């Protein structure tokens, strides 16, 4: 009988052990979840209940040197669509009808290859009251579509300075992977060109965010934490809106002059004005220009096509830094300075111009632009009259001396190098030499040899020499500034929220040429006489300041001549240098000169007179 008692005791014990095991297993699992892995679950619970919504920081404004707003911000009602909606054909079709926008265009704006792209994308800005009302009333029929208030760029001066200012747009999917944009998210607005791009880090503020508590349905329950966005810094440019306006208008008038004087192909032009002592850019004009508002909320495919097709003259290009031209006679100042420096010539050296120059041999005749010839002419007068023969002689001397001294000298003024302006896309240009020619004609051995004609052509700014308008203006500023070429720049200062400067651009010497003061004086005297009695005398007739300048008429194969004018003023106490190019505009004196005069007038606060110049010299 006691055996049965023992058995029963054993059975109760078994049941007890089962109970203990059940509770033990559950507790072990709870220990693992709550104590060992608790932090992970806490994170998941937080992720459940907390939604973080970023609030955009207003982008910094861009001001001109007088503090006038060139670019500011305004609020707009934007139609935003969540990326997930891009596969909803029906939705896109209905949206297309309401927005009167092609379906493909909406899809392109919403589409994103990035997984993380959850943020609604802007499909249209400045939605009309009708669209806003319709979409609000029919909210349930347009899932993932919302009307949001967004800040967009505003341009109080319209297109003025569009190339310097640049345009903005949503960050691209390739950009976002770059280290510079580490903290950015898809959908963020960034500078795409010009100062907007260059000064992105100053203009872009720090996004704020709001952490809100939501329930299981996503309905907000309250704000946990709110961090206000920090607005981007305002930047002050060296640009003077008044001078910029004159510069842009002067190009339009110059092109009209070109058309009126028998050059109907003239369609593009550039002008730049800089402070000779600091390198500050006061005006930078490029024609044709574009409307930066086209890019707000994303540029349409049609507009983009219009701005970039090969018949468009590429309005987005900033010709001041992104176009290269043969400098033509404007380069004679540097050939001349090189001749003075290396003792190849002096101010009163005598030359004889018969209209045709055959020093390199009768089979290689070269013409002066004045086919009748300047007869006996001094070096000084050679600059004033822009006599080609004088510079053929100097160039030929340099060829005979060897060592590519003319090229070396040209590089001392910044030719062939980027000057380091604080704008994206600057081109370096080209100072041709034997090594370049060999390289350039890699597949044409018969054209690889550097010939005397190459140096002679370079001496008058033709041949293979290429410069940007900025380089030419800076080099002339260098002549005015004792041979020091300053780094050109458009940023004057960055302001903090109180309007105090936190960063101020300091003048920097980019290139220091080896010309002596005496040599520079010789050249400056010649350049002053250009505007007083030489190739630009009718342009500057009646101008209330002395101007040192040089005309140029560049020959480009298959095109009409390119008109140049570069100058600095006042000649006795130089402050500003200007360079103007009119593509296929004809004669430098008659077409580019008047534009340069107008810009100098604006710079020096003189009355702006549009002169009808008649100079057809070079």
């Amino acid at each position, binding site marked *: 009988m006691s055996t*049965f008692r023992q058995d029963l005791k054993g059975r109760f014990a078994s049941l007890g052990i089962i109970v203990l095991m059940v509770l033990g297993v559950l507790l072990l699992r709870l220990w693992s979840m709550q104590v060992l892995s608790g932090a992970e679950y806490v994170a998941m619970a937080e992720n*459940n209940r907390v939604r973080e919504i970023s609030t955009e920081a207003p982008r910094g404004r861009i001001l001109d040197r007088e503090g006038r707003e060139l670019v500011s911000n305004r609020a707009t009602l934007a139609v935003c669509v969540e990326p997930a909606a891009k596969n909803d054909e029906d939705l896109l079709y209905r949206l297309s009808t309401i927005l009167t926008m092609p379906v493909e265009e909406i899809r392109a704006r919403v589409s994103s290859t990035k997984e993380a792209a959850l943020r609604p994308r802007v499909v249209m800005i400045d939605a009309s009251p009708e669209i806003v009302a319709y979409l609000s009333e029919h909210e349930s029929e347009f899932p993932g579509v919302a009307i949001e208030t967004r800040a967009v760029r505003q341009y109080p001066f319209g297109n003025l300075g569009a190339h310097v200012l640049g345009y903005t747009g949503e960050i691209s999917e390739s950009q976002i992977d770059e280290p510079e944009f580490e903290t950015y998210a898809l959908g963020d607005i960034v500078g795409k060109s010009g100062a907007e791009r260059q000064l992105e880090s100053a203009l872009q503020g720090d996004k704020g965010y709001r952490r809100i508590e939501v329930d299981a349905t996503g309905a907000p329950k309250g704000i946990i934490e709110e961090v206000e966005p920090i607005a981007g810094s305002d930047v002050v440019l060296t640009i003077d809106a008044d001078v910029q306006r004159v510069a842009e208008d002067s190009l339009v008038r110059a092109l009209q002059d070109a058309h009126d004087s028998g050059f109907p192909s003239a369609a593009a032009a550039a002008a730049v004005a800089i402070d000779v002592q600091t390198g500050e850019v006061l005006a930078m004009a490029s024609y044709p220009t574009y409307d930066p508002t086209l890019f707000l909320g994303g540029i349409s495919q049609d507009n983009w096509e219009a701005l970039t097709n090969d018949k468009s003259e590429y309005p987005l290009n900033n010709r001041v830094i992104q176009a290269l031209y043969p400098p033509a006679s404007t380069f004679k100042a540097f050939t001349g300075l090189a001749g003075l420096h290396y003792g190849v010539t002096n101010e009163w050296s005598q030359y004889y111009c018969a209209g045709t120059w055959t020093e390199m041999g009768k089979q290689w005749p070269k013409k002066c632009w004045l086919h009748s010839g300047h007869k006996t002419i001094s070096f000084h007068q050679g600059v004033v009259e822009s006599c080609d023969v004088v510079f053929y002689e100097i160039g030929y001397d340099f060829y005979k001396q060897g060592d590519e001294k003319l090229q070396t000298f040209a590089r001392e003024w910044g030719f062939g190098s980027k000057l380091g302006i604080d704008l994206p896309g600057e081109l370096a240009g080209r100072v041709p030499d034997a090594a370049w020619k060999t390289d350039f004609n890699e597949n044409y051995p018969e054209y690889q040899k550097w010939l005397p004609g190459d140096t002679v052509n370079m001496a008058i700014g033709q041949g293979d020499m290429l410069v940007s308008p900025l380089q030419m203006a800076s080099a002339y500023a260098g002549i005015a500034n004792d041979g020091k070429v300053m780094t050109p720049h458009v940023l004057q200062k960055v302001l903090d929220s109180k309007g105090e400067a936190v960063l101020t651009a300091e003048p920097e010497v980019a290139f220091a040429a080896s010309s002596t003061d005496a040599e520079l004086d010789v050249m400056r005297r010649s350049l002053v006489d250009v505007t007083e009695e030489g190739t630009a005398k009718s342009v500057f007739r009646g101008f209330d300041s002395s101007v040192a300048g040089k005309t140029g008429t560049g020959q480009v194969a298959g095109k009409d001549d390119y008109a140049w004018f570069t100058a600095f003023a006042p000649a006795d106490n130089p402050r500003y240098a200007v360079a103007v190019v009119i593509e296929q505009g004809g004669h430098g004196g008659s077409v580019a000169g008047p534009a340069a005069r107008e810009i100098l007038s604006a710079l020096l606060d003189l009355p702006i007179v549009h002169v009808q110049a008649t100079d057809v010299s070079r």
Partner: protein
Amino acid sequence: MVEHTFASTRKIRSEHSWFGRWVNVPLLAIVALLIAYGSVMVQSATSGMSAGDALFMRHLIGIAIGVVPMVIAWAVDYQSFKGWLGPLVVLDALLIVSPRIPGLGYEAGGATSWLAIGGVRLFQPSEPAKLVTIIVMAIVIAQYKGRIQSRQDVAKVMAFLALPLALILLQPDLGTGLVFVAITMGMLLIGGIKPRWFLVFALVGVLAVGAVLQFDLLAEYQRSRLLVFVDPSLDPSGAGYNLAQSKIAIGSGEFSGKGLGSGTQSNLNFLPERHTDFIFSVLGEELGFMGAVALFGLYLALLAIALEIAAQSRDLFGSLIVAGLISMWTFQILINVGMTIGLMPITGIPLPYMSFGSSFMVTNLTGTGMLLSVWARRQGV
């Protein structure tokens, strides 16, 4: 003879006071603590709901109602059930099928498990059926006097399980069916079945589950719950959502919890069914591992006291009844808590004394009354 053996091995305690005979103070204290603990959690879980106060009031009313059958069960001599095997089997079957009778059933959560009159829900008859099944099985198993020897005996016992089990599975209510099986297994252990039979039952169980899945015998909601249990990522916002949110709630409670009433998973509605099936998730989130340890301590005390009552029972019948109750509660704790932490599939099994639900509360309290009935008639009194 077995009864005699019981009595002879125990110290005779004939000098009991009325209180000493009838009142098991530790048991009543533990049950009171459990019910209080559960009420606190139900209050916290329902506080954020639109009808939260009404729900909590219903919980308290359920407790009050439950005290009545508890006292009756306590007062009635459990041995008097012995002669009522036939009527009890019929009652069991009637209880289970009653929701299927046209006009009496009420469907909720995919199963017709409510008894209703005129569309007013009364109670879930499968709850008292658990207790009736315990008594039926105790009567049957006690006949073998602690030694279930032959295959025929096993078959006979299983036949008495088969009837209610078949009926409950037709509901379909898989969870309750499993409770019936667990109750029977625990009672068979005490009833003296050879351990190798449990291997046979396990085998049959595996085959049954296989057949159920193979022939698509499950209701759609059960099927999805089972599949999600195997792979929670199958349906993260549907059936898997409940499990995932429950685990997040419990895990994020960490050691000491977020504080009573401060559970974000609970208050922000991430937890489904939080006052009923997922009450433990609320406890785990708000009171943490400490809260769980406290609850398990109370359960361990309850089950230990019950085991002691089983051991002191005057006869095997009493021991079997108590073993059935122990099995029922242990299994429900395992299934309910296990489901909230991903160890068990999601079945609608509530947590004893804790979950909201009057039928369930009444059943637990009646079970407590049965424990007390066995206690009051223990050896030596």
